[in-house]
């Protein structure tokens, strides 16, 4: 989900295409998918002349392991099976176009797209507001 200010502009929720062995891998793949969307939005805004190339775009995830992996390209026994395509995110982070940030669960705007929520949480997290 991408927001400008407080308004959501794009969102997506889907089943992942590959089987993951660990939660880190799952989150890592998700980050990678989000980065794809971010790249498109960056292109759009750059072409419109509203965004400078060197401006950072932040993507927030809630899994420290995957964030650490994206930031710091280390090789580890448990992550050696991850396909190269998902490692593309590391390049962008090193280029400085995308930054990956953490946020703890209550802030996760994304929960709305992946879970059935109980009432108070659901209303709280809606990007929508009554008029």
């Amino acid at each position, binding site marked *: *989900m*991408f*927001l*400008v*200010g*407080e*308004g*959501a*502009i*794009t969102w*997506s929720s*889907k*089943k*992942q295409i590959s089987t993951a062995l660990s*939660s880190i891998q*799952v*989150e890592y*793949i*998700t*980050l990678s*998918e*989000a980065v794809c969307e*971010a790249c498109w*939005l960056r*292109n*759009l*805004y750059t*072409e*419109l*002349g*509203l*965004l400078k190339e060197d*401006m*950072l*775009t*932040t*993507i*927030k*995830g*809630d*899994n420290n392991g995957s964030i650490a992996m994206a930031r710091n390209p280390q090789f580890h026994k448990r992550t050696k099976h991850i396909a190269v395509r998902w490692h593309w995110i590391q390049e962008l982070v090193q280029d400085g176009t995308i930054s990956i940030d953490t*946020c703890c669960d209550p802030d*996760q*705007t*994304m929960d*709305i*797209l*992946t*879970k*059935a*929520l*109980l*009432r108070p949480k*659901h209303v709280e997290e*809606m*990007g*929508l*507001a*009554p*008029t």
Partner: protein
Amino acid sequence: MKFIPNSTPYQLWTGHKPNVAHLQEFGAPVWVLAEGQRVLCKMLPKSYRKAYVGYDDSSKSVKYYNAETRLILTSQNYRFLITSPTSSPEHILIDPHVEDDPQLEGGERREGQVDKPEDRSTQSTILHKRPAKEEADPRSQRRTRGIHVDYRYLNNPFPDEEEAGIAFVDKDEVFTVLPDDDCHSLSQVKRSPEWPQWKQAIQLELAQLQRMGMWKLVDKPPHVTPIGNKFVFAKKHDNEGNILKYKARLVAKGYAQRPGYDFIDTHSPVVRLESIRAILAIAPTRKLHIHQLDVKGTYLNGTLKEKMYMKQPEGYGNGTPHVCLLIKTLYGLKQAGREWNLEFDRKLWKHGYSCLRSDPCVYIFRTDNDFVIITIWVDDMLLFMMTVELKQKAIADVESKWEITDMGTPTKIVGIELKISLDEISISSSSYIKSILEKELLERCNPVSTPLDPNVPLEPNPKGNEGDRSNSYARLLGELQYIVSTMWPDITYAVNRLTSYIANPSLQHTTTLKRILRYLCGTQSYCITYKVVSKKVDFFSGYADAAYTNTDEG
């Protein structure tokens, strides 16, 4: 090899025309004797009305469709109460699809072509006689009704008796029973009480086509099958349901076009909804002026590359055997959308606009520190500008090329409603949601606060046959997915879950679907609001998360 017009291989071989009088229209009512009825009862009906599908290949039986069991069965004991519509010239007048159908030729010339009156004058005399005949014979009206059956609704191919009863009372009420009351063919319109208004609309349309130089009349070259055309009619309503405008449009029967000869590519892009939202989101911060324009007779502006011939307009020919050599793209042609888009693209580039790589339907024109952005969805244009002068320039640019309707500040674009004020923009889709709820008769349901109950796990259909097997489940989900893509992120997950059971929904899934609708009922007036964003390092930010879900979600 020799080409002999108006004949079939069978006819050439045997010397006489095959008799096809026994062929019935697909879906025509056939009365089938009730067989294997367990309880013999005097009072039960002896035969039932079914939908005709075809004749059995090997035996003398007829194949019919049983809507209750959704099976196609055969029976030898059947009867068609009504004479075959194919042998009746009236039918040809009623059914717009049979008339002027250039596809039926050569060996395919079977149904609906037997006794077709060639001359238009014969047709019109029959047309005048028709109403008197209908009053005399109620059954012929029932037939009219039967022909309106849309095969998409084959679950109930025949209306129940009550509804048919209404149809008997007054011919015009037949149309009010139909899902949309727009008239479907020229002959229907001619019979409607609103004919003077429709006639005026047709004249207007023909005048516009003439003015735009759509075609020129030429002699028909040999070995050319001109494609047909028809008028489509629509009433435009305002928000209160009053009729604003009667609209007639001449459309070509594009289904007769042959790929590779008459058209090659048909793809035409439209602007992505994400792009519209992304630009709308920055509009308050940048104080952009927003303006909406609409091109009149959009597709008529495209230039046709292929050489194509069309018959003269249905019912409005000049009596000569000339055909129309099309110069521009008429509505209904397969390539019309593409040619319009190319035309639009070409003209805008000439004016110094350039399209974006990330979205080919977003155009930008830059001056030193200002810019104009134009997004185009077929013919709906949104213009975003920094200054009023640029706005005038942009409108003038577009106006110089095409006839446009100036819609002013936009209130609605592709189903998204916009509310624009100085420092914020809200988007919502309440009227679309309302229309869905009304269709499902749920406009007064009790709202719920969440789209999906977290305590009830969704399970696949256990037996594989309970629940709703009609396609209303899929249709509704499709409508909901459109809402998801336009503006409701909060039902994304619920809709996604339900779509995985689309092949075989159980009662539970149908109920859950209703729950989403009840949720939408409570939140239909909600909107996404884009406000002025104070300067931050981040222009936009994203969130990513994954969740472990049930294994049955495959």
